[in-house]
């Protein structure tokens, strides 16, 4: 693979805060023009990894490049070419939409900042609201504005830290449409999220829990790597069944999905032995289904619980 195609390549990144390891020996590679999803539970080190990539944190050990620049020594060059959207809204709440965008345009040294801000306002569909204070916007609009500010300097790499947290489904859908458009234009996007449907919109994903990267690849690859066997049970009283199955050996995961239940295990024989007693009950229908991404993640998460602290 030619080096020019790689947007991010890191190896053995480790970071700890006051003795607690937050990111442990993390290696990953993101190709140019990809949307790379970063998944994992709260406190798993997603934000810390993103911050190390854009020079906000210095890794304790490990090395890597973003857009070909060393993340340890060349963060100034990286900052000029990376748009980082923080988890918490971090534009100036007491500046208007237009003033925020003009500020960003000036900090990045763009020509004609006023004009650039005007263009961004039009692109965001915020015409007529440019004088509104950023702090007064609703969650969805704040997030749109934050993305607009991030892409204003036309970065080659976007780092988005849980960009859609607390945003309604319609706004989320529009947001993802925008992300895909940007990726099609050649921008690389690294996005962290909790949402499975969002993970499925990514070209590739990485799953990180308690600082360790547990799985990465395309969704199909991640599902295949898990070797999970899944059955879906539907019928009455599945809650009662869930309780019984959760304790059974060979069952690694039980999760309710509406009126049905996903039962999964890594060892096919053990799983089938576990569910055999209930398989004959006529009130329940058992169907073997391919595991969903969520099944895989819930399983990964429970498997890695031992690593916690």
């Amino acid at each position, binding site marked *: 693979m030619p080096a020019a195609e790689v947007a991010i390549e890191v190896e053995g990144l480790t970071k700890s805060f006051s003795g607690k390891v937050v990111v442990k020996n993390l290696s990953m590679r993101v190709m140019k023009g990809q949307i790379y999803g970063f998944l994992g539970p709260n406190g798993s080190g997603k934000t810390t990894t993103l*911050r190390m990539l*854009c*020079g*906000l*944190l*210095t890794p304790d050990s490990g090395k890597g490049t973003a857009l070909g620049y060393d993340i340890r020594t060349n963060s*100034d060059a990286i*900052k*000029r070419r*990376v748009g*980082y959207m*923080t988890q*918490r*809204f*971090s*534009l*100036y*709440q007491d500046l208007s939409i237009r003033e925020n965008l003009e500020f*960003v345009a000036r*900090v*990045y*040294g763009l020509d004609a900042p006023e004009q650039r801000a005007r263009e961004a306002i039009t692109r965001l569909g915020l015409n007529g609201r440019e004088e509104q204070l950023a702090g007064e916007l609703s969650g969805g609009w704040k997030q749109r504005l934050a993305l607009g500010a991030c892409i204003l300097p036309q970065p080659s790499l976007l780092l988005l830290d849980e960009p859609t947290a607390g945003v309604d489904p319609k706004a989320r859908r529009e947001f993802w449409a925008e992300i895909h458009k940007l990726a099609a234009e050649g921008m690389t996007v690294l996005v962290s999220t909790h949402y499975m449907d969002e993970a499925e919109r990514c070209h590739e994903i990485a799953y990180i829990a308690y600082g360790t990267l547990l799985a990465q690849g395309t969704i199909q690859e991640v599902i295949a790597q898990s070797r999970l066997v899944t059955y879906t049970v539907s019928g009455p009283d599945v809650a009662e069944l869930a309780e019984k199955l959760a304790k059974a050996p060979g069952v690694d995961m039980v999760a309710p999905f509406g009126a049905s239940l996903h039962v999964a295990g890594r060892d096919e024989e053990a799983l089938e032995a576990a569910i055999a007693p209930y398989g004959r009950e006529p009130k329940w229908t058992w169907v073997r289904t391919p595991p969903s991404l969520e099944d895989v993640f819930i399983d990964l998460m429970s498997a890695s619980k031992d690593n916690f602290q």
Partner: protein
Amino acid sequence: MSTLAQGWRSGALMRAWAMLVKEFVQLKRDRLTFGTMIFIPVVQLLLFGYAINTTPRNLPTALLVYEDNDLTRSVIAALSNTSYFHMTHVARTEAEMDHWLRSGTVLFGVEIPPGFERSVRRGDRPAVLVVADASDPVAAGTALGALEGVISTALGRDRGIPETVQSVPAFEIRQHRRYNPAAVTSLNIVPGLLGTILTMTMLIFTALSVTREIERGTMESLLAMPIKPLEIMLGKIAPYILIGFIQAALIVVFALVLFEVPIAGSLILLALLSTLFIAANLSIGYTFSTIAENQLQAIQMSFMFFLPNILLSGFMFPFAGMPRWAQWIGEALPLTHYIRITRGIMLKGATMQDLVAETLALAFLMLVAMTIAVRRFRRTLD
């Protein structure tokens, strides 16, 4: 009915108690506030209790003597013996003595005229001139009061001179209170107030600037942008220089109109040096902002800095009256230098030449603060 009232009361107490417990827990977490409450009052009490002295002795005095003989030596010794005058400088010309007075190097100038001894012997009753810098009437007042006994002490030492001729002293001491001859308080206070007010407002402006960005969460994106600490600092200080300048102009106008404080020197020089002083204070406030963890701490630091500025700068109490160590602390405060500048320009007509040392001191303090700020500024979130 009464149980209802009791119920309400106990409920209210319970809730107030819940609040109280929470406040104490939070207080315990905030080390700086805790320190401010216990440590600072004690330190400040001791510091200012020992430093402040309203009847200062050993005041720096310049000497201009044209002849060296027993009589002149006796006069000088008699002045020194009052313990108020400390002969620190010997001037060669009147101009040199005036320069020291204008720049605040000395508080007094003593001039013994040529042919003094001969005049005394001839019974001409010549005059020893004591020029006092009365821009601070408190500092000059007591010392001038002690001059009365000087003549007899001086003559008592020198046996060759008849003590008095028909109870008329053989020479006289002529006092000259310069710069504020009528000892008008406002003439002393207003130029100092200019600096004190500017210190307070400028510090607060910038002390909050970095902590505010951190508390509001905007610092994270700011750090991810291609902007450098020095650029952030300059951009944050610059607008307040203008605001400070407007404030200073306003105070000066009021000083002229309401308090009739003169501006004996150059208004342009006052404007230029005021700008430097404003920038120095903004830099110090900004430095606090890079050290403090939150806005409350930044305000506490500003206040802890502000207090010695008022007490040890010569604004409220005579600078010359403080012990050496307190004077050194004073020299490290921009207000000390600025008060010498404002009193110098407004009351004494001091020129740039008289104020070189104070200007350099201000510039130095500003650069030190800026250097610390840029170094302390956290470029990462580590």
